[in-house]
């Protein structure tokens, strides 16, 4: 089930987006709902603050997990940062990094960007916290490129195959998605 909704450029849209996505996963464990809510909040906030535009949220809920993408019209590319404890800002993507199974950025020169994450809804899967070795991917597409290929490259595992493709997600090893490049989380992505 894939649903999509647009949100206006308003601070209130952050909580509206949280509730929109929460409505699609009301049946799963509370801690997973919490993680998704926080990540939606972070990506929505980034869209409003950095892209200064409204944003569009796409949710693809399947039996095994949930995929959420937040697209905006901004040109800058979000950067995963490692702020010192006294630095107030720069933790949004760090939170997405810690709470998701995988996440990435798709951007194109003239059509804005989309930041997405994927989370298995199998509550037996444990999610690493800060300092993990997850890899984030940045896929840049040309105007005629198909950024949706990014999503199909690594399908969600279903609970029944947790030991095959599921383990790849849990351990967050390198993926085949090297359409352009993929990097470790400690290396800054493209400058904004």
């Amino acid at each position, binding site marked *: 089930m894939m649903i999509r909704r647009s949100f206006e450029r308003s601070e209130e849209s952050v909580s509206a987006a949280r509730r929109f996505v929460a409505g699609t996963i009301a049946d799963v464990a509370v801690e997973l709902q919490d993680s998704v*809510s926080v990540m939606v909040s*972070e990506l929505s*906030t980034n869209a*409003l603050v950095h892209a200064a535009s409204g944003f569009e949220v796409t949710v693809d809920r399947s039996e095994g997990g949930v995929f959420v993408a937040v697209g905006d019209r901004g040109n800058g590319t979000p950067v995963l940062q490692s702020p010192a404890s006294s630095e*107030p800002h720069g933790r949004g993507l760090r939170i997405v990094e*810690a709470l998701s199974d995988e996440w990435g950025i798709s951007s194109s020169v003239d059509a804005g960007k989309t930041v997405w994450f994927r989370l298995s809804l199998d509550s037996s899967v444990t999610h690493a916290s800060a300092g993990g070795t997850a890899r984030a991917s940045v896929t840049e597409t040309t105007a005629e490129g198909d950024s949706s290929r990014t999503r199909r490259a690594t399908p969600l595992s279903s609970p029944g195959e947790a030991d095959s493709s599921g383990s790849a997600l849990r351990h967050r090893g390198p993926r085949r998605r090297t359409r352009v490049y993929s990097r470790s989380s400690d290396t800054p992505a493209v400058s904004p």
Partner: protein
Amino acid sequence: MVVADHPGVQVTATVDDPTAPIIHLAGELDLASVDSTKEGIALYLAGTPVRVTFDLEKLTFMDSSGIALLVQVSNEVGQVSLIHVAPIVHRVLEATGLLEHFGLAP
């Protein structure tokens, strides 16, 4: 108990000792509510406290906007502790490696 209403987050405080106020936050702390929350707590920071405790028992949501606020207060005051932290808030603090910074067990 002093009550100051703000959209999104309600700020109240227990000020038995002005140098160590306990500030209670209730509601959802995000981009939309962080500025009003900051205004709401300014009153309790005016007396240059040496220690501030945030009681988050009724804070049902917080993201990095809220973390930014807590870090700012921490920079200003020096010692900030969090008590009664809900699981969702605990998870965000854990994800950012700030549990110990705010006096919580890792």
